[in-house]
């Protein structure tokens, strides 16, 4: 498989502001994640980390600012165009995977391609290859019977099957034991690097954040760069 990074790829966020009532969660936030690079955002609960991801995904509308993924502007699009752009440029790994437990891992991973109307043979083939790459068993066992780490790696594979320019991960190891956490984090950062995919990961886990090329802390509605070695 060949991976062609899109022109002006990666993720650019400029002047992003989001508020709920009088409370400003994101205030004029700027962030750039280049293709193949990774950025970790940490911060206390309720600081607005997940809100940042929701804004990038287009599930909530910011008050101002622009978001560009894979060279395509996501802000200001009509719902239909936004969905299309999201499908093409963004992949997402949720904390709890959000997989269908009754389906096999291959079926779960192939699902985004099938829903996009892609050739199903190619979808199953890509899914199998990704699962092998992430060391997930891909037989007829339902996904619900896999271990937590295997399920989360399946979720990573599903997020990458459409070859997005940007991968978003919301606490991808939050529900895992230490060993599985290490394994999933290793695979997540490695595969994004190998595929030239910009990775924005939101996490509480310093071990996960340390793996990123850059780390920011979301404090008082702003992203503050973290000097490495300052974790408590």
């Amino acid at each position, binding site marked *: 498989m060949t991976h062609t990074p899109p022109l002006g790829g990666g993720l650019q966020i400029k002047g992003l502001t989001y508020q709920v009532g009088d409370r400003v969660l994101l205030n004029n936030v700027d962030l750039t994640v280049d293709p193949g690079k990774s950025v970790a955002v940490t911060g206390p609960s309720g600081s607005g980390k*997940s809100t940042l991801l929701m804004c990038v995904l287009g599930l909530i509308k910011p008050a101002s600012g622009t978001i560009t993924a894979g060279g395509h502007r996501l802000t200001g699009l009509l719902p239909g165009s936004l969905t299309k752009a*999201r499908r093409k440029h963004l992949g997402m790994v949720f904390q709890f995977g959000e997989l269908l437990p009754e389906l096999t891992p291959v079926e779960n991973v192939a699902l985004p391609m099938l829903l996009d109307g892609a050739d199903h043979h190619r979808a199953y083939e890509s899914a199998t290859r990704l699962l092998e790459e992430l060391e997930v068993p891909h037989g007829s066992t339902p996904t619900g019977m896999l271990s937590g780490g295997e399920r989360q790696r399946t979720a990573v594979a599903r997020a990458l099957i459409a070859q997005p320019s940007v991968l978003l991960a919301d606490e991808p190891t939050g529900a895992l034991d230490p060993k599985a956490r290490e394994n999933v984090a290793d695979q997540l950062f490695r595969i994004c690097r190998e595929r030239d995919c910009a990775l924005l990961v939101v996490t509480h886990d310093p071990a996960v954040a340390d793996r990123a090329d850059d780390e920011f802390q979301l404090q008082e509605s702003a992203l503050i760069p973290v000097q490495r070695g300052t974790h408590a």
Partner: protein
Amino acid sequence: MTDQHSPRLRRPGRLWVQLLRIGRAAGRTTPGTRLRLWALMTASAAIALTALAMVTTSATFDGRTQRDTVRGPLLAGDAHEATALWKEAIDSFGASPHSIIYVEPLATDTPPPPGLSRWPRPGEVFLSPELAEAAKDNNSLERYGRYAGTIDKQGLRSPSERIAYARPAHPPANPTAASWQYITGFGQLFPMNQDIYPHTKAETVGVIAVLMAVPGLALLVVATRVGSATRDRRSHLVNALGASWAHRAVMNVGEAFTPAAVGTLLALIPAAVLLATDVRLPFTGYIVNADDLRHAWPQLIAALVASLVLTLLLVVVLHRVQRTKTATRPSTSSSHVPKWRLVLCGIGVLAIACSQYAPKGPDVVVFLAGTVLMWATLPSAVAMLSVANGKRIAASGYRKGNPGRLIAGRWTAAHPGVLVRLSVVFIIGIGLISHLQVWNSRLGDSAAAAKQLTQRVGDTLLTVSSSNLTPRATEHLARTLPDRTHLLATTAHPEGDHPHIDLAGACHDLKALRLPCPTTAKPITTQDPRLKELAAPYQGNLTVQAVDGALPTGRARQSLIVAADEPGHRAEIEKAAYAVLPGINVETPGESWVIGAQEKNRLNYWLYLFGGTGLGLLLVTGLISAAAEFVRIRRGLAPLSVLTGNTRIFRTIATWYLTVPLLIATCIATFITNWHSLFFVISLREGKFSWPVLATAATGFSLAAVTIGLLAAHSARRAAPSWRPEAD
């Protein structure tokens, strides 16, 4: 741990309160919370309503027996010690029969029958409120004498009873000859104004248990398991943390208590109405006496408390931690259908088929046992078929790259319990409708024939009979009959090879019936439907003879007929007849059969009442079960549909996951119902099986299957955009 915390830990009461609080808090945050809340509330209300129905039934039967005992006449051993005369006669308005109790006090200080403020004066009548209404409708309020008022409900078996207390205008000259009873008062159980409701208290409670409690429990099971995945996970978690079954039970009770208690309290509304006033039941027209339930208020409270306890107990039992599991991981197909249910279904079918070869008596038991077994396990059999079908659908979806079929197939194969719950409504619903129709036709066949007879004969020919009909009374009657009516006499000869009935009357009266006027008895053939009906019990043989002077009456098998030139004289004729002879019997030919048939037909209304309520509960069960699946589809697919923007998938999944299996269940239920109903009709040689009714039921349930699929897809599509990922 410090010592200052120790006293708090030593108070176990605090732990239970804490667990209850945890359960209550969980009830507010679990997925599908609102649906479960409403479902549990409805289910506990249904169980409480069933308990209320059972207590009301029991109290009503007790009250009826008590009032029957109080008003029954105490027969005197000797005429000298009697304080009153008493006799019962039967009459009817339309097709509803009633008793007229004739009374004649013999002593001034004798208390009147219960329900009467005083003895009726000579020629007066007291009517029960229902009978007074019917009499007014028939323009016959004074048929038995001057209307003096209504009977109080203390003297009635139920406020809807039709009965009259009448006193003849003149004391009977020869009471014994006129079938009067000498009585000393009232106060023993005596068969009077017997109704045709054939079931005992226990049988009626049994019918309520089958037709209301079973669907109510089904509803409770479904309601309890709405959103059960989260609850099961919680149970396993607290179990792993060392909680005992009692701790888990308290948490589950804490979660379910509020909706269950509100549901039970809702049943207090109908209970309050039943306690406050007499209530007429729908379909049957029966009026429940509020006094009966008032006497049984402790039982009522106990039954409502028991229904709440039962609801909570079932909630606890249905959330047991499965100890047979070999893995700690949540299984995706834990709700597999046990194979023994399929075996039981087969045994049920076999029992039905073999019941025809069993000896008389046990054959009914075998048939009924087979029926219960088959209907109870058929949904599981259908679900097993659906599991196999689900695997096929998933395989075809995988082969063709159709994600909707793939997901629907996998879901169907992994969650057969969903289909069992949904298809139970479809299968039992179709079966219940079809069987109500067969039962209805069983009892209604003769009613329909009777109705035809009434229409054919009309009210222009009435038979007037009494064992005390004397020539003098006949002469009196002839004088008081309205104009344009004709009095004739009949003498029946039912015995021998040539049974026949003789009709005798004055020549001008015979001519009014377009009959010849022979001086000696002459067999005739008539096309008059009234006379044909009169002669029907005698192989249609009718002879006619003109008489000059008194009509032949007063002997055995002799009675009178009154023919009217035009319809509408019946009330006047009856009034005249009752004035001449209390207790006289006036009816159209074949009327007693008509009344009997209609009375039996009215038994169907009880089936409609209880069966209809049960069917309603089943429908609610189906709706809640379907709605729970809507929640599941919504939650399962929202992330993918949000990210990919594909919302068409919802319709495909709903079609293959809900509509198609439910259509299969409908087809199987229709086929089985057809076989079972025909078998029932053939075995009993009674009733009729109606294809149109079954076809209508099958069409209705097929439309419901399509609607459920469409609604599920619509609800998921609408809710998907508002989905947001959950994270800690």
